[in-house]
């Protein structure tokens, strides 16, 4: 039984879609000849050549904008933002151009791009190389936001993203790249496109629903495991895509548990957890029997020192504490 890493899964999705559709091409910094900073695009330049894999200058606005522009005339580009933090340099091209083109043109044109956002803290890369910016894009009508937590979802969702006729911000947590796909999925690595907007219950439970995504899902699962030993039963729900968000799926879970903990790596204030909590407090208020607990990074930049980074970025213990608070 072979297991595939999250990075491999993304690469294989890119490869399969590139084989299927000659209009799919990649662009980004050092993604081609030298195989990408995290090796995600390894071998694709060798296989597909420079017309399909473009090594660009260090010019993030031009990368994102060129992707959008190419998409307007029939291309299906996948742009890499080497560290998602650098999307700060491309926000106009993504948000004011790509996201809005369909709407501004009354549906006549659209920009089916995928922007790969390499995301999250992974050991002492500090404040400008560790951010989780997904909630900005959740607040940018016109883009969709995908955020897979495991190799299988990453592969299936990347295929969907590439075929998605709308722009997709594809968040990849760099701390997951080497994670192998969970054993339950490992019998075959043929993965069909996974529809956007359909979450998954990763662990069933009856006392508390933990909604989480990307790397934080693993802390949620660990927390659930620890708490199970004490007889506390947690359901772990991974929405997999943030826009569209599987409200109904979360609602079903809350109907069972009545308690909600949301957990992500992005800073708490203004994070996507706030949106999840707000949805629950409006649409599923009747199900709730306890305050909604949010877990997120402390409201600070990411520090360099590992002790501090560990303190800022939430982990299993924070989720355990939040579950206890929800049950208090």
């Amino acid at each position, binding site marked *: 039984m072979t297991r595939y890493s999250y990075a491999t899964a993304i690469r294989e999705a890119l490869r399969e879609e590139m084989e299927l559709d000659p209009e799919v091409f990649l662009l980004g910094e050092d993604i081609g000849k030298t195989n990408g900073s995290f090796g995600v695009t390894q071998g694709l330049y060798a296989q597909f050549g420079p017309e399909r894999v473009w090594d660009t200058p260090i010019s993030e606005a031009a990368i994102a904008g*060129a992707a959008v*522009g*190419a*998409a307007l005339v029939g291309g299906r580009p996948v742009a890499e933002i080497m560290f998602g933090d650098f999307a700060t340099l491309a926000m106009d091209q993504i948000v004011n151009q790509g996201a809005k*083109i369909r*709407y501004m*043109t009354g549906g006549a044109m*659209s920009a089916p791009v995928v922007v790969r956002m390499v995301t999250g803290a992974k050991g002492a890369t500090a404040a400008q190389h560790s951010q989780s910016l997904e909630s900005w894009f959740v607040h940018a009508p016109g883009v969709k936001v995908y955020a897979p937590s495991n190799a299988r979802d990453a592969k299936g969702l990347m295929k969907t993203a590439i075929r998605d006729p709308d722009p997709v911000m594809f968040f990849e947590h760099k701390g997951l790249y080497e994670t192998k796909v969970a054993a339950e999925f490992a019998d075959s690595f043929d993965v069909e496109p996974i529809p*956007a907007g359909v979450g998954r219950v990763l662990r069933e439970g009856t006392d508390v629903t933990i909604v989480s995504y990307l790397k934080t899902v693993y802390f949620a699962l660990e927390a659930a495991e620890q708490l199970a030993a004490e007889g506390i039963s947690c359901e772990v729900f991974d929405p997999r895509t943030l826009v*569209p968000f599987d409200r109904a799926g979360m609602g079903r879970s809350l109907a069972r548990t009545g308690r909600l903990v949301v957990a992500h790596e992005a800073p708490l204030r203004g994070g996507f957890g706030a949106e999840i909590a707000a949805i629950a407090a409006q649409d599923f208020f009747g199900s709730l029997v306890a305050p909604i607990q949010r877990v997120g990074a402390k409201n600070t930049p990411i520090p360099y020192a590992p002790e501090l980074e560990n303190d800022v970025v939430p982990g299993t213990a924070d989720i355990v504490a939040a579950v206890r608070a929800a049950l208090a």
Partner: protein
Amino acid sequence: MTDLIEAPTTGELVELLRRMVLIRMFEEKAARLRSKGLVPGFLHPYIGQEAVAVGVAAALGPDDVLMSTHRGHGHLLGRGADPARMYAELFARSEGYNHGKGGSLHMIAPELGFLGANGIVGGGIPLATGAGLQLKRRGLGQVSVSYFGDGAANEGTFHESLNLASLFDLPVLYVVENNLYGEFTRINEHMRIADIADRAASYGMAGVSVDGNDVLAVREAAAVAVARARAGEGPTLLEAKTYRHRGHYEGDMCTYRPAGELEQWLEVDPIDLFTAALLGDGVLDEDGVAALRAEVDAQLDKAAEWAAEQPHPDPSEATTDVYVDTCGGEALR
């Protein structure tokens, strides 16, 4: 070089004049219609710069694509867009080019390869560059045109895009319309150089300055650049030196202009110059010119009338066209 492009036929010469007149009168009429309350948004009139849009368009083929700016009406009309649908869009009606969702700042004409005006100064430059990249990948010899102003040439997107295009020999024609002002700031107060075409050297790219009030000169310079692009020889930065006669937007009183500057430029009004040339060469006589103007005027009256009769969009349309579908409706709330 100049034999790359054939001399225009008589019919073509008249068509060049007609398009310039069309732009001029379209804009004048748009301003009047706005003061009557028909145009809810801003207008940035193109008056004075007509030779640029018309000259460049004359050098293009039907499969080429164009990306424009906030001052885009001239670029659209130069490319042959329908003034009726343009007015309808300015009036925010459903039959407008963007079904009333875009307005002046975002106007498109996709069937003409006109990919859009743009509300962000410099925002269209990367888009045109990316279109050029895709056209190069496609390999059919199509060209992408990027219009922008002198002010936009100070945005980071200008720099990043031209560098990328030059590196990859993309088939892009960058047309910088140097009308001496970015909003209310004169070029000497926003950059330290006189010829924006000189910036091409930073990218190892061809750079040319041309008299932007001479439609034939623009056409020829553009044609040379387009031929280079089609031949895989890479992009060109073409600077057209011109002037906007009106304010930055309709309503701007232009208090910032040095005395006499406008008057000087009115002496080299692109339409007057070209009309005089056509009269001098006997291509048209005074009656012919008058007839042409009357035709355009009538066309625009009809266009504006039609536009004013079109329905306003239904409020239910406010939430369509955000995504291709609603992913199951509720999910995208």
